[in-house]
């Protein structure tokens, strides 16, 4: 399967090279359209199989049968983002620009090197109707839509039922009513010798970011609004400072010693090994629970799901895929692919293969899927019970602020700076983007 795919990639790459040297031939009507694509869903990426499937299936459709892909593979989003930025600057973007997690929509749009997709959305109301307003707005720069959101990101808390039982506490049905209740439970867990929560700080401090976003996003209206703001510049608000103080306490009292400076993988393993009771993350983690390479046999059965305290849930529209093609035929073909990628069937396929949540709100999820995967069913169910939703830093903050967050967290954890100073550092870094 994989081999075949690689062959196909090489073959299409060859076709691509030949076609590029004969541009007249390539643009003749009815002839092949070659799309340059940089794919980072390769190697151990969680969605590698899904994207291999997508590219293959697209070429079987009416719109896609004349399309050939010329792939460049770039493993890891980190490397991908580095390269995409170089290509934005040089103006050599691929025809389809996948969004590599870091929010590059604004950057690409302002550089003027990606296509305005608004006309294509207007032309096809049925397609446009698949997306809610927030998702499209998130991908709009100066009134024009540049990105096609392909999924929605949500996250919540996974907890280990067995450890809760050992500590003699019961997890709430949906969520703890308050953060006080949550920390009371943490204390109980700790008394029973169990580490309550998983946290980290390296890379972007993903887990800690989820806790912090929740603390801010559930802290009244002001906090919730702040946590739903794109590119915040003032971190010295009472809500953010309070959250930083709580994060400091969590690092010092409720998590593993390697959380400070730690990367995601060892933290996930602590959770898989039953060393940590609660772990914030999204649906893409579900397949890992039953993978014996990572978690012990039967681990998936021990897992429960709850929302963040105060019925909070992180939910962000994802930064969408963009079109870097210049000529009409290529833009059209690229849009066709993005339409295919966001078709209801493929949204469900993505849910099934990767755990990515559909971007469309009222898709009918086939019952086979929910029956075969009870955790996924629970995720789909619990989403509706969230009373407060908010964003998280990777989607909303400036990139250098995310980095400041990650490098300053250890300082906060070891008491080298106060929560207030921590927030000041973030404010300072955000200000650098205005220089």
């Amino acid at each position, binding site marked *: 399967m994989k081999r075949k795919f690689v062959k196909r990639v090489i073959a299409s790459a060859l076709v691509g090279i030949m076609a590029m040297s004969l541009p007249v031939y390539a643009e003749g009507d009815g002839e092949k359209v070659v799309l340059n694509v940089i794919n980072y869903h390769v190697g151990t990426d969680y969605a590698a199989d899904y994207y291999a499937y997508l590219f293959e299936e697209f070429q079987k459709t009416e719109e896609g049968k004349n399309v050939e892909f010329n792939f460049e593979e770039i493993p890891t989003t980190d490397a991908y*983002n*580095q390269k995409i*930025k170089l290509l*934005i*600057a040089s103006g050599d973007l691929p025809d389809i620009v996948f969004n590599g997690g870091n929010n590059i929509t604004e*950057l690409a749009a*302002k*550089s*003027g090197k990606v296509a305005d997709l608004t006309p294509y959305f207007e032309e096809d109301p049925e397609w446009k109707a698949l997306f809610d307003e927030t998702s499209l707005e998130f991908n709009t720069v100066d009134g024009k839509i540049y990105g096609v959101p392909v999924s929605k990101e949500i996250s919540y808390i996974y907890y280990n039922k067995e450890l809760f039982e050992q500590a003699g506490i019961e997890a709430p049905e949906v969520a703890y009513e308050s953060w006080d209740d949550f920390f009371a439970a943490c204390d109980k867990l700790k008394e029973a010798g169990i580490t309550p929560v998983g946290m980290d*700080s*390296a890379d972007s401090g993903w887990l800690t970011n989820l806790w912090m976003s929740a603390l801010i996003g559930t802290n009244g209206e002001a906090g919730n609004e702040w946590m739903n703001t794109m590119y915040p510049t003032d971190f010295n608000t009472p809500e953010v400072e309070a959250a930083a103080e709580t994060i400091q306490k969590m690092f010092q009292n409720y998590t*593993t*010693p*390697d959380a*400070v*400076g*730690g*990367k995601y993988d*060892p933290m996930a393993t*602590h959770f898989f090994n039953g060393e940590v009771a609660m772990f914030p993350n999204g649906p893409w983690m579900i397949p890992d629970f039953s993978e014996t390479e990572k978690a012990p046999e039967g681990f998936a059965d021990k897992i429960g799901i709850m929302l963040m305290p105060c019925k909070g849930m992180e939910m962000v529209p994802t930064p969408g895929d963009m079109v870097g093609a210049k000529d009409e035929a290529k833009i059209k073909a690229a849009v066709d692919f993005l339409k295919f990628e966001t078709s209801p069937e493929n949204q469900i396929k993505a849910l099934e293969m990767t755990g990515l949540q559909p971007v469309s709100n009222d898709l009918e999820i086939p019952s086979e899927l929910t029956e075969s995967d009870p955790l996924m069913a629970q995720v789909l169910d619990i989403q509706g019970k969230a009373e407060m939703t908010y964003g998280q830093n990777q989607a909303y903050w*400036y*990139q*250098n602020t995310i*980095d400041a967050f*990650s*490098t*300053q*967290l*250890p*300082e906060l*954890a*070891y008491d*080298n*700076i106060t929560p207030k100073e921590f927030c000041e550092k973030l404010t300072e870094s955000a200000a*650098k*983007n205005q*220089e």
Partner: protein
Amino acid sequence: MKTKNRGLWIALFTIPCMILFAIVYAAPIVTVLYTSLCNYTTFSAPVFTGIKNFVTIFQDTDFLVSIRNTLVWVVLQSTFHVSLGLLMALVLRRKPKGWKVVRTAYMIPNIVPTAATGVMFTLLLNPSFGVVKPFLDFLGVDYSMVPNLFGNSRYAFWTVTFTWILYSGFNTIIFLAEMGAIDKEIYEAATVDGARPWQVDRYITLPLMKNIFGTCVTLASVAMVSQFDIIYMTTKGGPGNSTLNLPIYLYKAATLENNYGKANAVGVVQIVLGLVLVLLIQRLFQERKELKEGK
């Protein structure tokens, strides 16, 4: 030196090198110098603004810290690290039993890809399951908390330093080649005169190493001025700014702040700092006599 067609040969021998150089470096050097004086971001073309970028960076404490860290690393590397390489070369020079194994083994860290080295050290030094805890137990050290070597800014700088400072195989190889070039007769004469091994090294080998030692110090210094990979793989300049150096600062300005003008201003500082170091070191080690001889 006198030879026919001196000028012609000078040209013929240096021009190929310079052409290759020009292809790769000419345009970038000009670009870096010029855009360091510009307002230039990922999504805007360069616009001349004078020394604004330099003013900005020199007002940033993180930048000043990154210069300090860079310099500390330069000093450590050009003294301890290079000397270690020399010491190893002195030991191996006498070809003690197993010296070939040692020589090859000592090079291995230099061929292991940095990506892997970074992962290895972060896992090995993990406070929960790494080697630190068993090691402290073994030494009988009393601890309340296992030190988090990469995570705590108190240790991070030295931990990062540790990932490269002991691995001086590179210098060992250079020194060994240079030592091999020493006339064997000198050694024989010295041995006949009853010089002890350490005396031979002290009075014969070491003085002859002065030149190459200068070269190694130069190389070690510039390597530290542009050190990037390992820091990026382990701490990314954190915690706080404890392991921040110029290349990491530059990288962040370019890729996280999208501010190429600022990044290139840092680049200019980096180049100037490096050049000053190179000239200083060369002055320090150059023998004036030789300069004249070379004519």
